C-alpha cells in the first residue's frame, strides 16, 4: 500500500493552496457578508484549469485523477467553500456526467467549453418536493415529437445564474415513475426559463443559488442524454462521484478550521500559558486531528477506487457522510477553542461552521448517505 502522492498531485495541491491563500482569502469575509462571488476569481479558477481538471484532455480538460481533485478541493475549501462548490458542480456533476454519458456531438458542443472553463454548468435535480426523494420529480419534459416541452420548478440550484449550460433531470413518463425520468442538456437562455432571487443562506452565502422555473420551455430532442428513461440512472451515477467532491469540501472546511484553531491555541494565553498547554484544549485538538485524518483517508479511498474504475458508490457515501458530520463537529470545536473571538467574523471559524452545516444537507443528506451505506451492507 502506497500512501505517497505523486509529484504532480503535490503540485496540484500546492497550486490550489496558493490560489486559495493569495486570491480568495483576502476578501472572503466581505464576499460572504455581501453574498456575492467575484467574477475575477471564477475567471482565474477557469484559467488555472480547476473547472475541468478531471475531464479527458481530448475534450479540453486537464486529465487529472480524482485523488488530485480531492487534494485541490480540500485546499480551496479551507478558505472559501462558496468557490469550491462551484468547482465541485462543474467537475463532479456536469463535466463528469457529460463525459461519461453524452454523445460525441453533445460533448463537442457542450463539454469542451465547460472543460475549458469558458462556460459554467449547473445540475438541476432538486425540487420543492423532491430533495432526498429524487424519484418524485414533478418537472415534466413532455415528448412533443420534434422537441421536449418543459414545465416545473427546480430548487437550490448552485451556479443557476452564472451557468450557461444546465443539466436538467425531468419526468417524461410520470406513470413509469423513476424509469420515466430523463436527463437533458438545456441552454439557460432558452425562452421560458426564469430564475428566482438569490437565496439568502446561512452559509456558503456567496455561492450562486437560485430556484429555476420552466414555463413551456422547448428543448431539442438531440439534447436528451442517453436512452429514453435513462435520467434517474444518470443522476444516481453522477451523484456517486459528486459525493466525493462534497466530501472533500467538508474535509477542507474541517481542516481549515482545525489549522486556525491550532494556530490560535499556540498564541492565545490564559492562566499564564498558551491555551494549547491546557489539556482540555489539547485533547479537543487531538480529537479533531484524528477525525480529519479519518475523513481524509475516506475521501482518498473513494477517489482511488474511482480512479481504478472499481465500484465506489458506497465508499463515496461513507466519505460524504463522515466528512460532513465531522466538519460540523470540528468547526464547532474550533469556535469553542477561539472563545469569543471565534464568534466574530474576523477569525473565519464561525463562517466555516456555517459552511459545514450545508455539507450535511446537500448532495444527499447524511441520513440519505446512511440509507445508501446500510443497503450496501445487505448486498
Amino acid at each position, binding site marked *: 500500500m502506497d500512501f505517497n502522492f505523486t509529484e504532480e498531485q503535490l*503540485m496540484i495541491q500546492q*497550486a490550489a493552496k496558493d490560489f486559495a491563500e493569495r486570491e480568495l482569502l483576502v476578501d472572503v469575509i466581505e464576499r460572504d457578508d455581501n453574498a456575492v462571488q467575484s467574477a475575477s476569481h471564477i475567471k482565474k479558477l477557469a484559467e488555472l*484549469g480547476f473547472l475541468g481538471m478531471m475531464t479527458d484532455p481530448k475534450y479540453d480538460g486537464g486529465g487529472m485523477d480524482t485523488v488530485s481533485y480531492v487534494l485541490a478541493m480540500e485546499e480551496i475549501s479551507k478558505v472559501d467553500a462558496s468557490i469550491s462548490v462551484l468547482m465541485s458542480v462543474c467537475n463532479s456533476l456536469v463535466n463528469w456526467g457529460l463525459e461519461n454519458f453524452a454523445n460525441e456531438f453533445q460533448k463537442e458542443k457542450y463539454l469542451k467549453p465547460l472543460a475549458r472553463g469558458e462556460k459554467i454548468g449547473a445540475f438541476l435535480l432538486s425540487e420543492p418536493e423532491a430533495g432526498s426523494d429524487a424519484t418524485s420529480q414533478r418537472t415534466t419534459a413532455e415528448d412533443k415529437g420534434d422537441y421536449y416541452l418543459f414545465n416545473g420548478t427546480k430548487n437550490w440550484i448552485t451556479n443557476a445564474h452564472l451557468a450557461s449550460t444546465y443539466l436538467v433531470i425531468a419526468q417524461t413518463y410520470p406513470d413509469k415513475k423513476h424509469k420515466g425520468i430523463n436527463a437533458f442538456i438545456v441552454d439557460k437562455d432558452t425562452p421560458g426559463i426564469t430564475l428566482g432571487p438569490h437565496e439568502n443562506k446561512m452559509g456558503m452565502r456567496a455561492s450562486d443559488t437560485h430556484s429555476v422555473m420552466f414555463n413551456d420551455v422547448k428543448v431539442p430532442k438531440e439534447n436528451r442524454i442517453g436512452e429514453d428513461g435513462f435520467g434517474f440512472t444518470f443522476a444516481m451515477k453522477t451523484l456517486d462521484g459528486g459525493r466525493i467532491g462534497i466530501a472533500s469540501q467538508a474535509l477542507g472546511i474541517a481542516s481549515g478550521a482545525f489549522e486556525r484553531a491550532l494556530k490560535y491555541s499556540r498564541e492565545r494565553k490564559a492562566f499564564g500559558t498558551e491555551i494549547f498547554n491546557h489539556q482540555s484544549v489539547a485533547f479537543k485538538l487531538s480529537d479533531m486531528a484524528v477525525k480529519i485524518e479519518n475523513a481524509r483517508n475516506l475521501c482518498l479511498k473513494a477517489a482511488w477506487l474511482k480512479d481504478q474504475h472499481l465500484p465506489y458508490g458506497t465508499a463515496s457515501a461513507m466519505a460524504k457522510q463522515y466528512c460532513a458530520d465531522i466538519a460540523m463537529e470540528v468547526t464547532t470545536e474550533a469556535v469553542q477553542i477561539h472563545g469569543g473571538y471565534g464568534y466574530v467574523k474576523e477569525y473565519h471559524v464561525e463562517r466555516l461552521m456555517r459552511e459545514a452545516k450545508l455539507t450535511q444537507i446537500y448532495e444527499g443528506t447524511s441520513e440519505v448517505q446512511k440509507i445508501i451505506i446500510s443497503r450496501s451492507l445487505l448486498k
Partner: protein
Amino acid sequence: MKILVCINNVPDTTTKIKFVDNKAFDSAGVQWIINPWDELTLTRAIEMKETQPADIESVTVINVGRADAEASIRKALAIGADNGIRINSDTSDSYSVAFQLSEYIAKEKYDIIFCGIESSDYNGGSVGGMLAEFLAIPSVSSVSMFEIKDGKVVVKREIDGGNETLSVQTPFVLIGQKGIAIEPKIPSMRGIMTARTKQLTVVEGVACNQLIEFVDFDLPKAKAACRKIDAENVKELIDLLHNEAKVI
C-alpha cells in the same frame, strides 16, 4: 531571444529550521520550493514569452543540485518554461554554484541569464554577479522591471533615492528583485500536465573547489508569544509598549 533562468531549490519559507550539531542544515522532513526571488524572475520571463512570443524564442531553467531538486525544475516547466537542465552536483557555496553554471552556459548561447537577487536560505546574493564575471559579460542588479521594446531590452533598477531605466545590450545577466513580477505564477492544470512531456536534461557538474567552509550556525532568539490585550484596555497596552517593549 533565448532566456535562461537560474533557479535554486530552497526550503519552504515556513520551514522550521534545525541544524545538526550547529554545523549543517538538517533537511529531514523539509519541503523544498523554487527560491522565491528566482520564481519571480521566472514568472516575468514566462509573462514576456506569452505576451511577446516574437521576441522570446525560449525560456530554459537551470539548477545546480541533486536529483531531489527536480521537483522544483518540473514546477518551473509546469509554470511555462520550455525545458530544464540540472547540473548534477551537491555543491552549495555561491562561488562553486556560479562556476558550475558558467561552465555549462559558456558552451551554449543565451541572450539573457536571469538570476534572483538572493536565495532565501543562505542569502548570499552573489551568484548572479559572479556568474557574469565568469562569463565575462555585463550584469544588471536589483532589476525591478524588464521589458523588450522594439527589439531592445529595457530594465529599471533601484538606485539610492530612486530608480534608473537602462537600455541593455545582450548578452547579460539580469539580477531580478521584487517588482519584476507582481507575484509568482501558479501553474495551471494544463501546464502541470504538459510538464510531463518537456525535456529535463541532467549534465554532470565539473570539479570545483568550495571556497566557503561553514563553521557554525546559530538560530535567532525565540520570539515571545503574541499577547492579546482587550480592546477596552488601552491603558495596559500603552503601559506594555512603554515599559516592556520600550517602543514608545
